[in-house]
């Protein structure tokens, strides 16, 4: 019970503290818009024949360009949550000195990851609602009832990214150049999951990595069920892979996080300044 309260306290603190950086809050919506969504939409629309994304239809089996972009962006946002919202922000706490005070409390250190994930999910949800609203009003994004069928895949992806967040937090606490790692690894993770283009277009050597990521299946299921896109594999098989990889992500992630924590306690890295 104490741990659950602690997790919610961490989430609440996260939501409160972040809300006080107004520009940062605004950029959770603005940055994906100008860096990805609008340019990708206009780029894709440049290939349209008579107002229809025929090229995209040939590649993935749906001509719903905004849907393709926004559902990729949704999982991309989830990936960013694990990298930036959980792993990098724990590292920031270590650098500023507040992590030490947190580590001094009897709250389980893993609860810190869970609490942060909850807090980041809140901001993730807010920014996605704003982005989807923009998509509907400006870019002609259409939401249909059958999209709800993809909801279990999204929930599963959320759980998987929390498992992966443990792993990332463990890595990021130990390495020196955390910012560079998070920035590049987040980008690669997104690309390899197929947030922006189908993973079948990746060079052959990268495809096995793509198929080892739970998010690859989540995005595919999402696009199949919400947009009627052509699946990579049998959707039932994709669900099995998604659930399996999600389950595997927890023991691996927690093991790495535990090792990182012990290394820090051995080397005294908790407060380096």
């Amino acid at each position, binding site marked *: 019970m104490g741990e659950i309260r602690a997790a919610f306290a961490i989430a609440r603190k996260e939501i409160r503290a972040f809300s006080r950086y107004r520009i940062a809050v605004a950029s959770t919506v603005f940055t994906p818009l100008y860096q990805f969504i609008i*340019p990708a939409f206009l780029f894709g629309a440049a290939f349209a*024949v008579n107002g229809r994304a025929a090229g995209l239809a040939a*590649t993935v089996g749906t001509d719903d360009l905004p849907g393709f972009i926004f559902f990729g962006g949704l999982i991309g946002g989830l990936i960013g949550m694990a990298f930036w919202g959980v792993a990098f922000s724990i590292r920031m706490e270590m650098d500023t000195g507040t992590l030490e005070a947190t580590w001094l409390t009897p709250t389980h250190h893993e609860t810190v990851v869970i609490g942060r994930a909850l807090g980041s999910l809140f901001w993730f949800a807010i920014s996605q609602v704003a982005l989807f609203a923009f998509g509907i009003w400006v870019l002609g994004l259409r939401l249909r009832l059958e999209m709800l069928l993809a909801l279990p895949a999204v929930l599963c992806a959320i759980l998987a990214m929390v498992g992966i967040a443990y792993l990332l937090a463990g890595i990021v606490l130990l390495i020196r150049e955390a910012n560079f790692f998070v920035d590049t690894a987040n980008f690669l993770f997104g690309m390899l999951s197929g947030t922006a283009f189908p993973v079948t277009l990746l060079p052959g050597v990268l495809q096995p990595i793509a198929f080892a990521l739970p998010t690859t299946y989540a995005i595919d299921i999402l696009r199949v069920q919400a947009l009627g896109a052509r699946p990579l594999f049998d959707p039932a098989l994709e669900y099995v892979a998604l659930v399996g990889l999600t389950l595997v992500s927890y023991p691996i992630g927690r093991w790495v996080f535990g090792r990182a924590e012990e290394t820090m306690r051995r080397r005294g890295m908790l407060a380096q300044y």
Partner: protein
Amino acid sequence: MSLLGADLRAFIAAARKEVRQQRRYPTLFLGQIFWPVLLPASWVLMGRAYSGNDPQALAAFADRAGSSNIAVFVFVGYAMYNWLSVLLWGAGTALRQEQLRGTLEAVFVTPATRLVPLFGPGVGMLLPMAVIFASNFLALRFFFGIFPPIGAVIQAAVIVVLGIPALYAIGALFAASVLRFGEVAPVVQLIRGMFVLACGITFPVAMLPLWAQVWAKILPPTYIVDDIRRILLRGDTIADVAGDVAIVLSLAVVTGILAVAVFRYLEMSARRTGMLGQF
């Protein structure tokens, strides 16, 4: 010793200081090789997804972008994006940091021209820019197997060199303007976002609504990107784009004058109010 010679040396010293600082942060350097390849490569793959290798879709794109060669189109656009990024980040943060550290004040009490802190850091950006252009070029060659004719590459390089004053002036205007803001980072994001959306970086300008296309016409990067694409993709020569070059150079003069004026104004008001350190 002539004043000009002394000023020149001051410029070189400011540039060398920037290069040194960059060398101290190895991942920054790594990022300058990594990002210029990764980002455009992902957009090329996006382009492939959108085209679906469908002849009609490719023809539609060629109609709007001037060519169906997605890789060159994207890489040229991203070269400009990276150039702008380095410039806005570098120039904006360099002058701001000089102000915060109080070294701007230190420069003001030397007899060197006031323009050293304004334009000096930009010189230091030339090296990272060269690294970025080189990695762009190599990525096109080795990952996408594209070999533009050497004559076209040289002409494109000339366009880049001719574009330097304009980009330089944009950097200086930006640096002088952000001195009044507390945080540089969000302003960089905002301005860079504007350039990305307006200048045809990742999609043809023809896709923009008409009112936005008018705005694009007063931004030098729009012309530079378009000219390089015309030379590399359509076999145009410098003579064909001479009109654009003239516009870019005039915009450079106007922007440069504007930058100096803003900076002078801030300096004067600082001297009046005695707040040189913080404007």
